[in-house]
């Protein structure tokens, strides 16, 4: 982006002087030139369309968005330019309350309380204003600059809800902007208001009025502070009084040594006693909650004009009567999952053949330009076949991610959590575990992070331990490769569904075992919102799919590329020159063409066996032999510890090097020739269960809270994988 065209130099200078906060993205030219961005903390309850608003706000220019959608589990930063200024948006996880108790709510709380930022952008769901105001009221008590965005205003209009934003502005004391992330309405105005507020030297103060008993005490304290000429930072004495009365910890810490506290303590004790009697409870937080609820109700009454019950709510209840039906709810859910895997396989298979032959001819085409045998082998067998084997599955991956994104964004996911909680509970899991578990079908990394929605440490650990059983998208290529090689096209989709379902069932059984044997203890309560159904915008879906696809391609182009080269190297070296010489003389000696071919093949196989990779495979073969795996499959599994995509690329390299004729035989056909059904199934079972990739393992250590847990996980998964593969191999062998 080029800021030299900017005409309004004043804003630039002003911003430069402020010099507060930095975009963490290094490659922003503006940072180098010394322009400090406006740092905006985005806070709001879950399901208010924050992610979509971020896309709308930053839509005009270059954006960086995190790579997982749906549940924002970590804070996420987006930098973009507006009117020649950088705006640095920090998207905090959705939180119902600042005092929330889940891990992700703590992330939001920690940031809001302890980090430096210019202002809070409170995103509010216009169709559910009253409840959203509960958080707004808490945010106001932070005494920071704030702007309220009434998001989804278009849906509110459709619902017959009218909001008097000017009146709301007056009551709250902060700027309020009506906006729709979907239609783009009000987005520009919101950006302008953010600018104005950030540049405003004064902070606007909340105009909230509490109930009479609370106000009485507040006024007493405020008057006392005024009499003493007390000042604290940029807070008004009323704000200090509110903080003192409602036990703001930070404030107490700061004022602890202030002599004024000697006189304040008796006043505060008396004030609280009054409140305790009036509210019939000795919990000041509960009193605050009651106050906030009453204020939110009052505000809603004043600023809202509702013609009838919101249409979207009526519609949601109608849909729920089907999807959450007592008897049909679970079958419908299973049908959706089945359909997803069918689509993944069927539609994914269509472009596959084209991609496959394109990769092959590309390999041959490139190969024909390379003189050196060594180099050609590296480029064609190593790079193109290795990376190509992974690229092949891009269509499947895209469909799977699309399905999961739909489940996440429509609001169906929390219904399923409700339907399944009773069932899950029996297995020692929490209904909410369902969300990370489904995310796990996409990628285990965000799924591990999504376990933060679970409050109890034991629930989290159980979920973390069994998450690997939900086969991630990167394992999909392995399944697709093996099922399409060993099963007829018509039933391959069913087999795929079966693989995923049995993985999930196994996970449940293991959860029960873990709950009974290892993580005994109390359950976490189950309280969750069932958000209204919403059709996700195409833009957001596209964005999700696009970033997923790009991420997959990037991985193929970097990590998988390097891994493929390493595998190629390890499978070609060391070269036993003596062996080659002996065979070459033998080959030259024979005249028979067939004999020559045979010797060539023998040489290649021998060379491969004596390579580094062969040595590793041979060394570990005894461990895998009872499962029916040869050293090549063993090596592929070991390489899969780095990333599951590598399994397929390793097989691609190993089998194309070892293959006699380097013809157009696809990997699928080669595997069919080399393996039997029992081995293939046993391999699938092992892949289903064993340790997730390196990246996931690193996140696992972080989320579980210690490296030792990874050791447990490794032992646990390897043991289960080995045992079940062993059983599979021998049972299938018996029957076939």
């Amino acid at each position, binding site marked *: 982006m080029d800021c030299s065209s900017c005409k309004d130099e004043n804003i630039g200078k002003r911003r430069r002087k402020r010099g507060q906060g930095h975009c963490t993205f290094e490659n922003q030219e503006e940072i180098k030139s010394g322009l400090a961005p406006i740092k905006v903390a985005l806070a709001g309850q879950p399901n208010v369309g924050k992610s979509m608003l971020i896309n709308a706000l930053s839509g005009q220019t270059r954006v960086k968005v995190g790579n997982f959608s749906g549940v924002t589990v970590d804070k996420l930063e987006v930098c973009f330019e507006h009117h020649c200024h950088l705006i640095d948006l920090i998207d905090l996880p959705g939180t119902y309350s600042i005092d929330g108790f889940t891990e992700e709510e703590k992330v939001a709380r920690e940031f809001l309380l302890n980090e430096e930022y210019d202002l809070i952008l409170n995103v509010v769901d216009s169709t559910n204003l009253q409840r959203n105001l509960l958080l707004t009221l808490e945010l106001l008590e932070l005494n920071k600059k704030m702007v309220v965005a009434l998001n989804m205003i278009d849906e509110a209009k459709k619902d017959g809800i009218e909001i008097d934003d000017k009146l709301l502005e007056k009551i709250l004391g902060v700027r309020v902007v009506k906006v729709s992330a979907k239609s783009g309405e009000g987005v520009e105005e919101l950006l302008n208001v953010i600018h104005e507020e950030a540049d405003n030297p004064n902070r606007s103060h909340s105009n909230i009025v509490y109930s009479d008993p609370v106000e009485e005490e507040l006024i007493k304290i405020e008057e006392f502070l005024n009499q003493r000429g007390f000042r604290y930072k940029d807070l008004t004495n009323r704000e200090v009084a509110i903080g003192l009365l409602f036990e703001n910890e930070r404030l107490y810490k700061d004022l602890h040594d202030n002599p004024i506290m000697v006189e304040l303590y008796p006043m505060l004790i008396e004030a609280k006693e009054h409140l305790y009697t009036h509210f019939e409870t000795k919990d000041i937080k509960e009193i605050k909650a009651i106050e906030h609820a009453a204020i939110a109700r009052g505000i809603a009454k004043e600023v809202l004009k509702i013609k009838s019950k*919101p249409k979207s709510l009526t519609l949601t209840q109608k849909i729920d009567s089907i999807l959450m039906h007592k008897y049909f709810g679970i079958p419908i859910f299973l049908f959706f999952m089945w359909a997803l895997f069918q689509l993944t396989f069927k539609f994914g298979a269509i472009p596959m053949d084209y991609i496959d032959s394109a990769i092959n001819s590309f390999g041959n085409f490139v190969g024909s330009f390379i003189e050196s045998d060594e180099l050609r082998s590296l480029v064609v067998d190593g790079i193109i076949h290795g990376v190509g084997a992974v690229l092949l599955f891009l269509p499947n991956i895209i469909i799977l991610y699309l399905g999961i994104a739909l489940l996440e964004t429509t609001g169906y996911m929390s219904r399923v959590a409700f339907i399944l909680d009773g069932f899950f509970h029996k297995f020692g899991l929490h209904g909410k575990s369902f969300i990370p578990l489904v995310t796990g079908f996409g990628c285990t990394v965000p799924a591990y992070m999504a376990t933060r929605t679970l409050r109890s440490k034991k629930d989290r650990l159980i979920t973390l331990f069994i998450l690997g059983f939900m086969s991630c998208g990167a394992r999909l290529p392995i399944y697709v490769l093996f099922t399409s090689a060993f099963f007829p096209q018509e039933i391959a989709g069913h087999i795929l569904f079966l693989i995923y379902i049995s993985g999930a069932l196994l996970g449940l059984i293991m959860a029960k075992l873990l709950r009974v044997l290892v993580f005994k203890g109390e359950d976490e309560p189950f309280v969750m919102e069932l958000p209204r159904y919403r059709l996700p915008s195409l833009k957001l879906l596209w964005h999700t799919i696009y970033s997923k696809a790009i991420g997959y391609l990037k991985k193929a182009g970097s990590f998988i590329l390097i891994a493929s080269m390493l595998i190629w190297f390890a499978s070609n070296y060391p070269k036993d020159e003596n062996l080659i010489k002996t065979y070459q003389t033998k080959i030259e000696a024979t005249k028979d063409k067939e004999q020559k071919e045979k010797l060539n093949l023998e040489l290649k196989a021998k060379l491969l066996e004596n390579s580094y990779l062969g040595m590793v495979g041979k060394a570990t073969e005894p461990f895998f032999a009872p499962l029916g795996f040869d050293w090549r499959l063993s090596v592929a599994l070991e390489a899969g510890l780095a990333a599951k995509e590598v399994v397929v690329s390793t097989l691609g390299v190993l089998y194309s090097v070892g293959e006699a004729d380097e013809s157009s035989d696809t990997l699928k056909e080669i595997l069919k020739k080399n393996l039997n059904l029992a081995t293939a199934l046993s391999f699938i079972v092992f892949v289903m269960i064993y340790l997730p990739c390196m990246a996931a393992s690193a996140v696992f250590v972080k989320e579980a809270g210690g490296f030792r847990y990874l050791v447990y996980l490794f032992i646990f998964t390897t043991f289960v994988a080995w045992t079940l593969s062993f059983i599979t191999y021998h049972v299938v062998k018996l029957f076939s």
Partner: protein
Amino acid sequence: MKLSELKKGQRAIVKDIHGSKEMKQRLASFGLIKGAEVELIDCSLTKSNIEIMVGTTLLALRREEANNIEVEVIEDGL
């Protein structure tokens, strides 16, 4: 009576909430506090979970939690 004892479609006022501070706070963040109006929407198959409406928010609870919430019926459903 307890929230868990409501019948489908019945509306009630929350009289009291027992349980830990945290639990109360969590419920409060959804607007479920003393004096709030609730309606029982549905139960799950095994009756282990219930769905209620607080204001315009749909909320899912386990029976155990609902047992801790005392209510008074104000309107009988169908």
